[in-house]
């Protein structure tokens, strides 16, 4: 008892006891318990009612994380990660969390639109889905009838489908196969195709899985995984797991200081395109200092350590220093650290491969893992684990005549096409196009020299009919003759799978809500179109589409997957979103654990799985150990044992790529000095990058994300800026051989002195009011319509998009666009320049097409750049349509 509080502790407790007895009569406090579960449940803050939880697969970017949508009164009110998903383990990124705004975007296209004015004039008439699909079907039927009348299947290739982010689970391909057209052009050469072509001939798959969570040493080249990059969310989590729980050392190479550089133990900024010189120098150190895994190289590759040492002779660290600017002593030190720290892994994404000769870069980086024996080890460089799904039978036979559109025969190794070349091929009359359909595709914004695409779209002679399936207006969709809008990804059915964890999974996208306002998902439109093209079935197309609706089609795709049926099949997926369920996420370690709390182990050493007697039945073993069956390699015999091996002809990792040599490319990873490396002292190399809250082109209209990031000043180093008299925030001109843009300078130490970097995602000229900041252009037009745009947009800068001044130049091996090879000058803006000005030349862009073809295997620059290749240059194979896959 004291003078301030005249009650003994005993008395205090007595009062407490009495109060407890009547606690329920006291009512609820304003203070309520926070949600402490890991997810899977959500409650209305107003009514306290449990919200309906519907699992789905995200599709804002390409990582396909698992999510749970919370639905209240038929409306999606919140998204969060699916806690049962092995890839993203219950977490979504900012883009994923904001995804439902795509659904309710006031600028979403909600009904088919038929163009009435000139192309791009913005004059439309709304029509029904039925009218729209009837119109498109009639256009398609016209081409098919013409092909049949002429008995010429190549005419069907005039039906062209161009897609960007296609996660339709093969729906688009099945549709085009039924139409009998090979005019199918993707977008991968503006993504990472040279990474794929650097890897696929080497070990089979097109990507690696770096086991960051268990590694001791992560060496990343141009893969800003903490911020964007492939498997952004899953790999960022695992990299942080490794750093916090496993003391992983992270060494990062990137000319720009992105978020991954910020969390790295060491960040190095090489000259763009010189990563391969550094990597080869590291390999040089590892081989010459005998830090390599001799047994792994001899057993599991098609080269010997001696051959590697000989090949790497010309790449000492001093050479790499001269090319990259990274000190030889650091290259040596890191090479030694990397080779002697076990386990270790590399990761790379667009940084190295998005250059001319990017395939060499990727192959070299993979080689580092191979020579140190880190392949398929816990904490090492692993094969990706994915799961397949089916296309139900009977399957359409596909087109009979090869098409060269977007897959020019001058690029026989570019198995993921060269889609950048499409408009040039059309404008030069090399290919004819009668009907173009596009899906999740916006080349007039996302491609280099984007104005070339614009020119093609505008020309009705080159492109007689253009239909877009976009649910949002875009720089490309604005030129369509017909828009048949898809739904948002939360109102659609698709199967999906991604190797975002070492435990493979398969998931679904399902209609979280019914398509908003009776809109129609892409699959439904395809079904309608096919049924109208082949109304009486006489063309033999209808038989391949016996599905009543999109869901029935997707349900059929999940039939026959071993083990799924026993767990409940498609209905299990509808309820859980992803299969199989490996365990629960431990809230402390973030690992997937079983009911005893033990981590569910991943499987390693896939290449060392021994083949069964049944598998070996009827197989033969070749001199190099390759086990062949039915004309295919099914494994490899090493030291008398029959292993599954790798997905190559030899069953081993093929550092030496015979397929490259066939066309005069070096079969071994080499450094080729790029034109940009020889730039003049006052010039800079223009690079682009993605930020953590945006995709390349489809999120600038999402309100949450636009508020976070909406403008993209050009990053320039203080040294470079000072030399040009540029201060932070100055209006500047960035000029390439194509023309110039006027933007602002962001002067920062976080960029290489020879580089100017401009992010994507900004500077839209179409795609909704918010992305374009139409409120500033024409305030009275939109005022009083959308209260967010009226009252909450505090910014007045939408950024400036750099793609119009980026030159077309592709890797002649992998076909990738060299996004980071454009040389520019940067200067203070001139009198009369206005922020956002873009002035570019179509004529100059067309010259770039001719110039980049000189680097193809048929061109003069190819031979000049590959004098070291021992081949009969006069006997290279002739270009052949349909060479790619």
């Amino acid at each position: 008892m004291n003078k301030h509080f005249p009650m003994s502790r005993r008395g205090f407790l007595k009062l407490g006891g009495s109060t407890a007895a009547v606690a329920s009569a006291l009512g609820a406090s304003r203070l309520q318990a926070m949600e402490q579960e890991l997810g899977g449940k959500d409650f209305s803050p107003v009514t306290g009612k449990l919200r309906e939880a519907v699992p789905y697969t995200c599709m804002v970017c390409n990582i396909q994380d698992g999510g749970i949508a919370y639905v209240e009164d038929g409306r999606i009110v919140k998204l969060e990660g699916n806690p049962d998903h092995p890839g993203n383990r219950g977490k979504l990124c900012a883009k994923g969390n904001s995804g439902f705004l795509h659904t309710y975007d006031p600028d979403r296209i909600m009904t088919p639109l038929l163009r009435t004015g000139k192309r791009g004039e913005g004059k439309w008439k709304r029509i029904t889905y039925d009218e729209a699909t009837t119109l498109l079907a009639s256009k398609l039927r016209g081409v098919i009838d013409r092909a049949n009348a002429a008995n010429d299947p190549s005419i069907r290739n005039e039906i062209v489908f161009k897609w960007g982010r296609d996660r339709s689970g093969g729906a688009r391909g099945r549709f085009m196969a039924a139409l009998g057209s090979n005019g199918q052009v993707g977008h991968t050469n503006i993504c990472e195709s040279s990474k794929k072509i650097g890897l696929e001939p080497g070990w089979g798959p097109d990507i690696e899985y770096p086991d960051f969570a268990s590694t001791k040493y992560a060496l990343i080249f141009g893969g800003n995984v903490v911020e964007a990059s492939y498997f952004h969310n899953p790999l960022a989590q695992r990299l942080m797991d490794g750093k916090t729980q496993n003391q992983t050392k992270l060494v990062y190479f990137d000319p720009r200081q992105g978020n991954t550089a910020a969390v790295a133990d060491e960040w190095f900024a090489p000259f763009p395109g010189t990563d391969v010189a550094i990597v080869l120098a590291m390999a040089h150190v590892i081989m010459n200092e005998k830090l390599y895994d001799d047994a792994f190289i001899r057993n599991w590759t098609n080269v010997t350590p001696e051959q590697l040492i000989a090949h790497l002779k010309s790449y000492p660290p001093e050479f790499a220093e001269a090319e990259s600017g990274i000190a030889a002593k650091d290259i040596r030190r890191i090479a030694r650290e990397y080779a002697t720290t076990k386990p270790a892994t590399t990761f790379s994404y667009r940084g190295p491969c998005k250059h001319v000769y990017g395939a060499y870069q990727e192959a070299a980086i993979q080689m580092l893992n191979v020579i140190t024996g880190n392949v398929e080890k816990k904490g090492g460089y692993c094969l990706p684990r994915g799961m397949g799904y089916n296309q139900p039978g009977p399957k359409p036979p596909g087109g009979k005549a090869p098409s060269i559109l977007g897959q020019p025969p001058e690029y026989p190794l570019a198995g993921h096409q060269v889609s950048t070349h499409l408009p040039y091929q059309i404008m030069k009359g090399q290919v004819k196009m009668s009907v173009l359909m596009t899906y999740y595709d916006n080349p007039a914004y996302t491609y280099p020299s984007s104005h070339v695409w614009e020119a093609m779209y505008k020309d009705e002679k080159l492109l007689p009919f253009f239909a877009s399936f976009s649910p949002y207006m875009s720089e490309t969709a604005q030129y369509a003759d017909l828009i048949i809008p898809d739904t948002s990804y939360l109102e659609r059915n698709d199967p999906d799978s991604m190797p975002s964890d070492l435990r493979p999974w398969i998931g679904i996208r399902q209609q979280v809500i019914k398509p908003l306002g009776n809109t129609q998902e892409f699959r439904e439109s395809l079904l309608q179109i096919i049924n109208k093209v082949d109304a009486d079935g006489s063309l033999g197309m209808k038989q391949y589409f016996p599905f009543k609706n999109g869901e029935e089609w997707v349900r059929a795709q999940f039939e026959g997957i071993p083990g799924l049926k026993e767990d409940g099949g498609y209905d299990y997926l509808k309820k859980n979103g992803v299969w199989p369920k490996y365990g629960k996420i431990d809230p402390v370690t973030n690992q997937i654990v079983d009911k005893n709390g033990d981590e569910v182990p991943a499987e390693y050493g896939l290449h060392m799985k021994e083949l069964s007697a049944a598998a070996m039945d009827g197989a033969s073993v070749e001199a190099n150990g390759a086990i062949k069956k039915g004309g295919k390699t099914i494994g490899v015999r090493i030291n008398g044992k029959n292993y599954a091996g790798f997905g190559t002809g030899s069953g081993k990792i093929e550092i030496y790529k015979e397929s490259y040599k066939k066309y005069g490319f070096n079969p071994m990873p080499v450094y080729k000095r790029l034109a940009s490396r020889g730039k003049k002292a006052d010039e800079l190399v223009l690079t682009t990058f993605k930020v953590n809250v945006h995709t390349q082109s489809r999120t600038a209209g999402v309100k949450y994300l636009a508020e976070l990031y909406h403008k993209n000043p050009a990053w320039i180093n203080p040294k470079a800026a000072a030399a040009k008299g540029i201060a932070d925030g100055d209006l500047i001109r960035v000029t390439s051989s194509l023309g110039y843009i006027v933007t602002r300078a962001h002067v920062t130490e976080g960029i290489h002195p020879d580089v100017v970097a401009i992010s994507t995602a900004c500077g839209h000229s179409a795609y909704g009011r918010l992305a374009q900041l139409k409120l500033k252009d024409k305030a009275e037009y939109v005022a009083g319509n959308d209260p967010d745009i009226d009252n909450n947009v505090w910014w007045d800068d939408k950024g400036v998009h750099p793609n119009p001044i980026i030159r077309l130049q592709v890797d002649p091996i992998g076909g990738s666009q060299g996004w980071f090879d454009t040389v520019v000058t940067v200067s203070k803006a001139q009198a009369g320049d206005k922020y956002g000005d873009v002035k570019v030349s179509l004529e100059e862009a067309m010259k770039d097409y001719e110039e980049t073809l000189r680097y193809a295997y048929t061109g003069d620059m190819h031979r000049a750049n590959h004098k070291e290749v021992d081949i009969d240059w006069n006997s290279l194979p002739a270009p052949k349509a349909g060479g790619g896959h």
Partner: protein
Amino acid sequence: MQTLIERVVDGVWRDECGAQGALFKLLARVIEYEVDQPLLDSLRGELREPLAEAGAEVPEDLLTGDPAKVVEDLAVEYTALFVQPGAISPHASVFQTGKMFQEPADRAANWYRENGFVFTHRFSGEFPDHAGVMMSFVSALFEREADALDRGDAAAAQVIHETRERFLIEEMGEWVPAWCRTAAQAAEHPFYERMMNLTGRVLWDELTQIVPPRRLRELSEKNARGPVVVAKDPGFRKASGL
């Protein structure tokens, strides 16, 4: 049993209900769907003079142009004004929340359901909180009230009357007049400019008849939303803006 005076008053009111119902029906029709050939014929015929008297003169090109082309041109203008991206969305959800299909759509659907109507759509992308549908609902309630008065069912008429007034005030009064003004400003064809202005005037006139002065001031303020000038705060960001 009604007195003679009551019968006269009800008769006048019945006629007014009928007239208002027809007027709201016309305005709703113009907002809900594109002009078609029958409506164009009416605009050229029986509606021409009364519209002119109401300050919404039918534009010359509608009167003299090739009918098919006029219908086509108006469909394009309709789409630009009310449908395509960048349009002045006619939905309360967009106007009030910045997103499509939010609570205002549920509220509107409830109003319709409770009064024996069901919302249907002709095109995709149509929702119950569409300004045209709301106008149509008001029109229907006017007609029902007139019918009830015809039947001599004053009690039913009163219920309908109150329902209509509540709907006008609670669901339309705060936004439709402002929306009409915005749409009229954005319209590039004088037909829609005039019809949107007329709709706004008719609606506001109706509101002034039924809303107490204080509430009317509130509605007036809510409908006064104009262009917002984004205040620049130089201290907010450094020159580069990052």
